[in-house]
């Protein structure tokens, strides 16, 4: 029995929609079968809460008196470099930006205690943040310097804009070398003494809609504790990766670009994160409702951790050198057990994505829909799918050679 998003929204409005989380639905499908479950359930909610580096926020900070053209000048928020290449008072801060005086990895491994991700967390938490700017003067924008406290409530617009979130599946990182490696996948002990993974598995948004049947441009989502939208596929979207019979990619594949009003978000769901020896990022809470339009979609959302396969990759040699080598394939169920086996060696596992908090995202979204404070948006366009030919390419380097000024014409 096929349903439409409009029909589901009417049920939400009437308070009659049946909403389960992507975790709860697994048992229901096992007990009742796909057909009965699809007839019974209207929406399945997903969630994830994990570090997502290609996140950022833009702000309109309002005009100073006299006016100042920050655009084309330099700007910082709590000493973290922000981007000022727009009009007079629109600025953008990225999750991984650092203060100029952070020593980086000069004393290895660097601690990276504060950066763009923390600025976003502080602003969302209502804290005062120091805004400094310097620029050149013009006839219409004469002011050249600014040093002031500012808070989110005083800004005109404050928008979270993440160009790549919710990676569909991800590498499991190990270190085959004989020294500790400090990576964006955490601290990896030598000779494969630990393995770090980063996925919400059976709760993960894109793993529950592996072929992008329902998630598309304009899908309304839970983002950072507020409501947001899917803008498009994210950067590095790579839908053509190998998949299981159930359609679930066995490698990092699809991604999403998402946005939402930062003023309605919460620091519980946007957390600055410091990765020793690597840098700063933003841990983002993101959840997507999946309308159960037909039995095929119910089959997809019934995916469990045992059905999701992730590649084990060496972050000492293969990853840094862009080699596509995969040491082993393991299931998310194995990863969550605390131990995996890689080429006969038992390796302790730990996560970077919080399953406990992913479950909370899915439950909040479930409650929002059940209480009618969130309804489903009809996608305006689909995301590029596995057969679209859309692929993620490496950089084609063409080294620059300075022109020879002495050459005889």
């Amino acid at each position, binding site marked *: 029995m096929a349903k439409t998003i409009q029909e589901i929204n009417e049920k939400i409005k009437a308070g009659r929609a049946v909403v389960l989380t992507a975790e709860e639905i697994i048992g229901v499908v096992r007990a009742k079968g796909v057909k009965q479950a699809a007839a019974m359930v209207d929406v399945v909610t997903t969630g994830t*809460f*994990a*570090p997502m580096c290609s996140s950022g926020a833009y702000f309109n900070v309002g005009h100073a008196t006299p006016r100042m053209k920050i655009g084309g000048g330099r700007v910082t928020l709590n000493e973290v470099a922000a981007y000022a290449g727009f009009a007079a008072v629109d600025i953008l801060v990225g999750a991984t930006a650092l203060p100029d005086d952070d020593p980086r990895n000069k004393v290895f*491994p660097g*601690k990276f*205690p504060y950066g763009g991700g923390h600025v976003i967390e502080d602003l969302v938490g209502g804290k005062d943040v120091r805004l400094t700017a310097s620029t050149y003067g013009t006839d219409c924008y004469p002011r050249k310097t600014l040093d002031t406290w500012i808070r989110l409530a005083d800004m005109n617009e404050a928008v979270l804009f993440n160009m790549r979130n919710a990676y569909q599946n991800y590498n499991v990182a190990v270190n085959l070398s004989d020294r500790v490696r*400090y990576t964006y996948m*955490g*601290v990896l*002990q030598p000779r494969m003494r*630990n*393995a*770090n993974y980063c996925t919400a598995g059976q709760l993960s948004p894109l793993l529950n809609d592996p072929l992008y049947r329902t998630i598309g441009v304009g899908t309304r989502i839970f983002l950072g504790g507020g409501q947001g939208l899917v803008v498009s596929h994210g950067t590095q979207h790579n839908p053509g990766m190998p998949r299981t019979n159930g359609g679930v990619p066995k490698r990092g594949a699809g991604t999403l670009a998402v946005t939402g009003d930062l003023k309605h978000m919460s620091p519980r769901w946007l*957390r600055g*994160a*410091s*990765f*020793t*020896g690597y840098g700063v*990022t933003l*841990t983002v809470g993101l959840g997507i409702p999946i309308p159960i339009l037909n039995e095929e979609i119910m089959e997809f959302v019934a995916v469990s951790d045992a059905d999701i396969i992730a590649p084990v990759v060496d972050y000492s040699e293969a990853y840094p050198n862009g080699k596509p080598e995969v040491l082993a394939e393991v299931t998310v169920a194995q990863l*969550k*057990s*605390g131990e995996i086996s890689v080429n006969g060696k038992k390796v*302790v*596992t*730990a*996560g*970077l*994505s*919080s*399953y*406990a*908090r992913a*479950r909370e995202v899915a439950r909040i979204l479930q409650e929002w829909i059940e209480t009618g404070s969130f309804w489903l948006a009809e996608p305006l366009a689909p995301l590029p799918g596995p057969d679209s030919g859309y692929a993620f390419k490496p950089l084609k380097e063409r080294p620059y050679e300075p022109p020879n000024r002495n050459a005889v014409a």
Partner: protein
Amino acid sequence: MPKKKLVLNFPPHLIGQAITYRLITDYGLVVNILRARITPQEWGSMVLELGNGNGRLAEAVAFLTELGVGVEPLSKEVRWHEERCIHCTACTGPCPTQALAVADRHSMTVSFDQERCIACELCLPVCPYQAVEILF
């Protein structure tokens, strides 16, 4: 007999004295030094696991206090800030004593057992959210 983990803080004038030796010979304690940091002219600190050898642990602590050594239970000096923890579980891999562990693989939440902690600090560079703090 339960073991006790203590943090001893030595004022500079005591750093030259063999105090740990007296805990063993005078009070019969079973001493396991988990960590020691001593810098000349500065305060020294030591983390000890003490077995209550002849039942004289309380006397030994009184002896240390009288000498001017600060004595605090380790549990007071290592703090896990649950409100900062997002339960990602990154700390549970490197923790050698499973003081930080996922006790329940269904909830997938991290729990901290102070009794197991030996203040090795392996969790500190691993936690992206500064949820563990060691004060000494």
